[in-house]
């Protein structure tokens, strides 16, 4: 674990500011340019071309070969004073809104994947992001169930774990990540996290003022269960509607208590063994 500091200590000197994403889903148009740009830039292999029937979502969720995933949710709910453009014969209008959101690795302040990685393949970069070193990962798979968001996964024919690097290679040369570069509506905004948080707060106020009370920020709070996300969101509904956990907690928060229980259990086992021998000395058939 990385302590309680909001920006994790990463051991770098002359560290650049922590960089991240602010994904404003209210202007996402579901074009999937982010998915495509990410696949292209990072040479991610094809991972199935099935049609799911989940609105326009055919990539289903984040995984080893999907580092940006656009969720599509069709709802019979109003959105602000939007006119959905659909109505019945009698002139009654139907409530309809189509939520779209480009999901990505959250680059948590307290990243469970990084904490549990036994090889050190996962590490914290100078930008405060979390990246897998593919030449070190031995495919133990521990990071996969550790992630509270279901981001990282194993590439089957490769054996190693893969996820968004926040385009570490591009950041290193001063470029923005491929997805943000490709986003035509600036739904995906990249920059120093402080600046993004400020911008997000302003945007949220603007939306609330406009009567869109559903709008809320997700992952921007440094006091949440993962110490705040390096990639956070403006959502228009509850997080679980988008497939996001409503209250994620880094599993290693409870690890000190787990180690204490392991110690106690090891003691109980030793005591049980001693008792087993003691009892056999007292017993009839020692």
């Amino acid at each position, binding site marked *: 674990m990385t302590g309680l500091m909001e920006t994790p200590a990463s051991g770098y000197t002359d560290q650049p500011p922590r960089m991240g994403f602010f994904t404003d889903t209210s202007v996402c148009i579901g074009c999937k340019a982010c998915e495509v740009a990410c696949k292209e830039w990072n040479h991610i292999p094809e991972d199935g071309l099935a049609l*799911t029937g989940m609105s326009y979502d055919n990539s289903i969720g*984040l995984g080893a070969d999907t580092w940006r995933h656009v969720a599509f949710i069709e709802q019979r709910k*109003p959105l*602000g*004073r*939007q*006119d959905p453009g659909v109505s019945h*014969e009698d002139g009654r*209008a*139907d409530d309809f*809104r189509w939520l779209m959101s480009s999901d990505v690795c959250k680059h948590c302040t307290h990243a*469970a994947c990084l*904490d*549990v*990685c*036994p090889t*050190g393949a996962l590490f914290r970069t100078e930008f405060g992001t979390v990246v897998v070193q593919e030449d*070190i990962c*031995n495919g*133990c*798979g*521990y990071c996969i*169930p*550790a992630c509270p968001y*279901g981001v990282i*996964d*194993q590439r089957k024919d*490769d*054996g*190693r774990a893969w996820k968004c690097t926040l385009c570490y290679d591009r950041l290193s040369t001063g470029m923005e990540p491929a997805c943000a570069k490709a986003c035509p*509506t*600036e739904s995906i*905004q990249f920059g120093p996290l402080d600046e993004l948080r400020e911008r997000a707060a302003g945007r949220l106020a603007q939306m609330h003022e*406009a009567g*869109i009370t559903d709008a809320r920020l997700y992952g921007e709070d440094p006091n949440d269960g993962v110490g705040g996300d390096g990639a956070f969101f403006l959502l228009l509904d509850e997080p*679980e*509607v988008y*497939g996001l*956990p409503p*209250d994620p907690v880094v*599993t290693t928060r*409870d690890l000190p208590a*787990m*180690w204490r*229980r*392991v*110690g*106690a*259990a*090891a003691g*109980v*086992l030793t005591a*049980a*063994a*001693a008792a*087993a*021998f003691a009892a*056999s*000395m007292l*017993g009839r058939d020692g």
Partner: protein
Amino acid sequence: MSGSSGSQGKTLFRRRWEHTVTREGVRGARPGREALTGVHTGRPRGRGRRGEQPMVPPAEFTSYYGQPVINRPVWQAPDIPGYLFLGGLAGAGSLLGAGAQLTGRPDLARVAKAGSFGAGLASMAALVHDLGRPARFLNMLRMFKVTSPMSVGSWLLAGYIPAAGVAALTAALPDRLPRVGAAATAGSALLGPGVAAYTGALIADTAVPAWHDGYLEMPFVFVGSGAMAAGGFGLLAAPLEQSAPARNMAILGLVTEASAFERMTRRIGMVAEPYHSGRGGAYVRAGQVLSVLALAGALLGRRSRAISMLSGAAFMAASAATRWGVFNAGLASADDPKYTIVPQRARLQARP
């Protein structure tokens, strides 16, 4: 999506551009990230009930097309449940071997130490086999991280297996290197309980609801299960006149496992469902039946080698069934978004 109309053969929807485009609506021709969806399009909101009201009561929880929130562990059976089982068998067996040596039961000591070493080697083989890149196994020892139970476990095994190996070899060759044998026996008995217990933290230190939520009791479930396996192995392999401590250890293990499991599944509420249903529940029930049979055999057949051996095998099978049950319950709890979302939602609502 057409829900509220029964007018068959008619156009269900028509565009309403003519009513909605206003001067205000095109204000700021290309607002980009400042765009406010649904604002300035003119239609007044909130005038009474329009359309049908939903007839289906609100769902207990919401999810994204029923998709799981977390990614399913890629750990495979029999590798990982087998690893959990063998680690418990090995770790508890080293205590049995050391105790047997101390109390002058050379046959029990020999089989317990051999069993522990064999189980330790097999557990390592299972772990390596489950890696996506088995050739990179040694990267496990690239660093030591207390935040990673797998790292701690790798180092534990790296110390334990050589100690258990020397203990087993010196026990098999009596009168050779007695001091080395004693030191290795002591070393394996010191590390063994850690090997048996740490796997509780290994699986609990994940976002898998049925594993994580049980973190307070899981190490006790696992050491109990380990004692059942090691005691059962002693009953199976050691001669009757030396196997009493093995029998006692198996019975104490059963009591520990059963009580910790009961406490865990009561405490974690709805997240315990996968321990009672589906494949996980089937293994758990099989383990309970085997436990009862093993216990009956241990208590009633203590004068019969054959019944003791059967009882020992049943203890081992019951221990394995628990591991497979816990493993499969975890997978089931990862696959159903309910177990992730409902407790988190409840936690949020309970917060002031």
